[in-house]
Structure formats: structure tokens, C-alpha cells
């Protein structure tokens, strides 16, 4: 299925473990996995596990406003987006899991 994970929690939270495990299980099941990072979730862009998920095939998006605000450098494997971009992702995906 097309699975969208929305992540608003920081990388040292229980949500982060849940996110990584769901994303990996989805990739294993051949789901098309997208992850949208927003709010404190944008801190996850600095975590190696997220880079690994990108390399394993997950599509990574983030709210550029939230990342700039937190002075997080853009990463080449993550696509700069916005809340409007999130709206498009919600259209395209079949299931949405929101972690906040």
C-alpha cells in the first residue's frame, strides 16, 4: 500500500522507534513508504537512521519552515516541502499514521 508516516516528535522519543520500525516493516512488505517530518520531528533529519531509511527506499519530506526555524541544514536525500505539500501527500497515500 501507499503509506504515509507523519512525524512531529524528536529523535529521542518512543515515537522515533515506532516510526523507524513501521517504515522498515513497510519497505519489507513492498509498501511505498513516505515520511513527512514537521515541528520537533525535523530534528530527526539529523539522525543516521532516517538517512538509512532514505537509502532503503523511503521518500523523505519535511516542513522547510520548521527545519529553518530549528537551524537544521537541508539534507540531499530529503525533499523540502510545506504543510501544503503534506496535503498533497495525504491525497496520494492510502493510509496515514501520525506520530506527535
Amino acid at each position, binding site marked *: 500500500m501507499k503509506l504515509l508516516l507523519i512525524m512531529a516528535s524528536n529523535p529521542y522519543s518512543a515515537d522515533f522507534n515506532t516510526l523507524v520500525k513501521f517504515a522498515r516493516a513497510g519497505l519489507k512488505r513492498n509498501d511505498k513508504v513516505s515520511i513527512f517530518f*514537521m515541528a520537533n520531528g525535523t530534528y530527526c533529519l539529523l539522525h543516521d537512521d532516517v538517512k538509512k531509511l532514505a537509502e532503503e527506499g523511503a521518500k523523505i519530506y519535511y516542513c522547510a519552515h520548521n527545519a529553518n526555524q530549528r537551524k537544521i541544514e537541508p539534507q540531499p536525500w530529503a525533499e523540502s516541502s*510545506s*504543510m501544503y505539500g503534506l*496535503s498533497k501527500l495525504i491525497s496520494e497515500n492510502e493510509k496515514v499514521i501520525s506520530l506527535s
Partner: protein
Amino acid sequence: MAKKKAVSLIKSNPFSWKAFEALRQAVGMAMDHKVYVIFIKDGVFALTDWKPEMIGVPSSDKSIEALGMLNATIIAEKESLSERGIIKLKEFPVEIQIKTKDEICQILKSAEVVLTW
């Protein structure tokens, strides 16, 4: 692309950044989707006359106004309001509907996407 019936369910109190981010997200979604923003539990404090800037949180007034312009439906749960002794909501340039738990359940059941905060 498909327009979906989407619910943003705000349970947490607004006195940190959570509700602010939730409302920003709801505004983005309301551009494409039929959005219901539902405040329950301590989330209903978001609709009272509080002073976010005093504690370093930006105001959500503009987001709430934008939700109105984008035809989103804003709802506060009746039970949550009365449990907290909240009699009067802040005046917004947008209608805030007050609905019972049962009515909110029906909206949740029929929603295609639910984002909880």
C-alpha cells in the same frame, strides 16, 4: 487528486507548540481536503482567551481565521468544555461549533484520515 474527509483531533492543551503546529497543519490540509478541526479534552483551552506570546508560543488566531476562509469546520466538544468549567469561548471571526461526544464520534467514524495531536 482525491479530496478527503480529514479530521485534526486536538487533545493536548495549547500551552506549548503542539496545538500551534496542529493548526498550521490543518490550514495546509484545508486547501485540498474537507477538514474538521476537533478540540477535545485539554485541547479546548485553545479556544479560550489565553495569551500565547506571554509564554513564548505564537498566536494561532491567523490559522483559525484561515481555517474559516477555507471552509474547514471547527468543533469543540461540549463535555470537555463543561468538565473544565469553560463557559465562554474567545470571539473568533469564524464559527466554532459545539458538539457532543456522540456527534464527534460520528464525524470520526466517517473520516478518511484522522491526525491526532
